[in-house]
């Protein structure tokens, strides 16, 4: 039975017999995120019509290709001017800033990047790169890893830097002293675990990483892993100090316990060593739960 050739062909919502379809399956993949009670018209149309789905897949693909295009390697520039200039050009093109040795910070201006300056900078190593907010991904990191004398790297709020990228940073282990990963949405504690190669690191900023499950515990483990490095990140003691003051808005369900538990709470931070204090803060949202547990 051939389907009628119309421009909008009906798609049966049941893909196959036996299970509840794609929606049911995606719940298994991401149980928290699929509370789609109010599905938009676009999603409804995508379910029903092949053509709408194809257009949306094309747009998705185009976005991915855009990021890939931004991260291509500039082989011509590398052959002509050397790896330092190629890396600097890559960062400047993405919208970041570069500092060569004994020079000021450079950023791309409205006129673009003129090649005259680069001719003088062929042999000058790059010391610091500020790639905050740039769309650097695993492929694009090639350009940065060629900068062998890089001392400071800032990858704040980069949306495509993930755990795989951190696994490549060992190339810069000899020279890197300062690294900032604050605000990157895809970095988790699993990627941070492979920063142990960077033994020369003196400052590491891992604050505000939404994908890290236990910021306080991760900070403690990072400090143990990199003993010479100053790790700035989630202040694991912060939640404890604020605990009693934040009690009323946070735990409205337990007013009778508050009066009794508050005097006792103040003594807790001094009595216990650092590990368990961090865990108590992580375990409960308020002091009442922490003590009950």
């Amino acid at each position: 039975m051939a389907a009628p050739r119309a421009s909008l062909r009906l798609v049966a919502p049941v893909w196959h017999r036996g299970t509840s379809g794609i929606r049911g399956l995606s719940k298994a993949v991401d149980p928290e995120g699929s509370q789609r009670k109010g599905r938009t018209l676009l999603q409804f149309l995508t379910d029903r019509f092949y053509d709408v789905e194809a257009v949306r897949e094309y747009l998705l693909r185009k976005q991915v290709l855009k990021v890939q295009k931004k991260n291509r390697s500039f082989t011509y520039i590398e052959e002509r001017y050397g790896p330092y200039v190629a890396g600097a050009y890559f960062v400047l093109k993405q919208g970041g800033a570069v500092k060569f040795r004994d020079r000021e910070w450079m950023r791309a201006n409205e006129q673009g990047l003129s090649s005259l300056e680069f001719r003088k900078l062929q042999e000058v190593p790059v010391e610091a790169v500020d790639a905050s907010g740039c769309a650097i991904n695993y492929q694009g990191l090639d350009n940065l890893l060629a900068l062998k004398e890089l001392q400071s790297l800032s990858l704040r709020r980069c949306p495509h830097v993930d755990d795989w990228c951190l696994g490549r940073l060992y190339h810069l282990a000899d020279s890197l002293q300062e690294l900032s990963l604050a605000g990157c949405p895809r970095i988790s504690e699993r990627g941070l675990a492979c920063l142990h190669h960077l033994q020369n690191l003196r400052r590491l900023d891992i604050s505000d990483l939404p994908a890290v499950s236990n910021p306080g515990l991760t900070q403690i483990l990072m400090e143990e892993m990199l003993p010479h490095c100053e790790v700035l990140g989630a202040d694991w003691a912060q939640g404890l100090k604020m605990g009693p003051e934040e009690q009323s808005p946070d735990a409205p369900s337990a007013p009778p316990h508050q009066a009794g538990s508050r005097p006792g709470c103040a003594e807790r931070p001094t009595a216990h060593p650092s590990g368990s204090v961090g865990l108590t803060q992580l375990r409960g949202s308020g002091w009442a739960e922490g003590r009950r547990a």
Partner: protein
Amino acid sequence: MLRRALRLRLGPCLSGRGLGTYRGGSTLDWDGKVSKIKKKIQSIFPGRAWSPLYDTSHLPPERSDVVIVGGGVLGLSVAYWLKRLEKQQGAIQVLVVERDHTYARASTVLSVGGIRQQFSLPENVQLSLFSAEFLRNINEYLAVVDDPPLDLQFNPSGYLLLASEEGAAIMERNVKIQRQEGAKVCLMSPEQLQKKFPWINTEGVALASYGLENEGWFDPWCLLQGLRRKLQSMGVLFCQGEVTRFISSSSHMETASGEQVTLKRIHEVHVKMDHSQEFQPVECAIVVNAAGAWSGQIAELAGVGTGPPGTMQGTKLPVEPRKRYVYLWHCPQGPGLEAPLVADPSGAYFRREGLGNNYLGSCSPTEEEEPDPGNLEVDYDFFQEKVWPRLAQRVPAFETLKVRSAWAGYYDYNTFDQNGVVGPHPLVINMYFATGFSGHGLQQAPAVGRAVAEMMLEGHFQTINLSPFLFGRFYFGEKAQEHCIL
């Protein structure tokens, strides 16, 4: 449609009864009747299971171009690449038959989930490298519109293989092969090892190879569900049932040198439903055997190995299930965040699990101590006698530990040379194998799926040449032995 109505081989059918007659029913079940009528009317619409006589919505379709036996990561990977590499969208109908939708005994989900490039065969290194690239870009490969991106929970911590004096030369040779293929592996001396990982006891270690990139471990369940989701969106049909029979035809032919040879071709696959005698014969063009630990049984059903021993017809598929344990323990003073997956020369291995000083590990038993693969019960004495002493000797902090839990899973163990079998069978011409990977199937699944799909669509391997892994080697005796097996 008429033919179907006239077919006499029917299961329990309601043709004798009209709607609304119930045995001994004195109450008129209006709601039940109305919903039945509604269901019947709905089934007439295009895309539904129209069957005038009884409900077949739980059965697989009557015909399908490719039937993949086994819904684990290898089977789904073959299905994915078939749909991705087909010349025209919707050209190939694929049906995946999986006996157990809960995957309770499947090797994929019970695996430790590691991926490494440190193998001794260049083909294995290439397979792992491509699979790492697939996992890295998994949200481009398996993207489905409107669905959340996958988080594989990948730990890029690497593998650390330790070698004693005898194994040091072999390790150096292997690392050279791995580097040639593009893997990033570094060799370390015992002093460097002690400096980098102070919690290791380097006594008896002559050399260590440490994977720096693209190695680590991830969550296999997430990969499996991501593949299922993408396949559903690409139009692959899934069926829960067990393959009980193949209907095939044989043709006797003569080779150029005058030998008689019998070529077989599978025409139908009988898929039996759970807890019932009902089965559906599925007409198919190609069958893929990706049944993992039970591939040997499926191959026997197809007639592989039925013949006088010593001939190609009598060569069985040497894949059998082997039980392996994995133990989870807690050690408060154990190695920190930087710990890779450490593999001792004696065969014991462990890795960190999570942030709470928990570790996973085990050891492969020797041939004599192989446990009985009849069930998945865990033997804790094995940990006490074989695993713990070796681990405690290698990492002194593990002398105080507490086992929290354990599980067992199957390896689809290739008794011939512990490497996978891919490609068609020389005599059963439309059965393709994708099995026998003996513990490293999960990490090579994306690449193997692509290779098998290329073999099916083009007739030869295009990207990675897996000719050493074809079935013929069992008859000709050419072992493609893999030495680095964990």
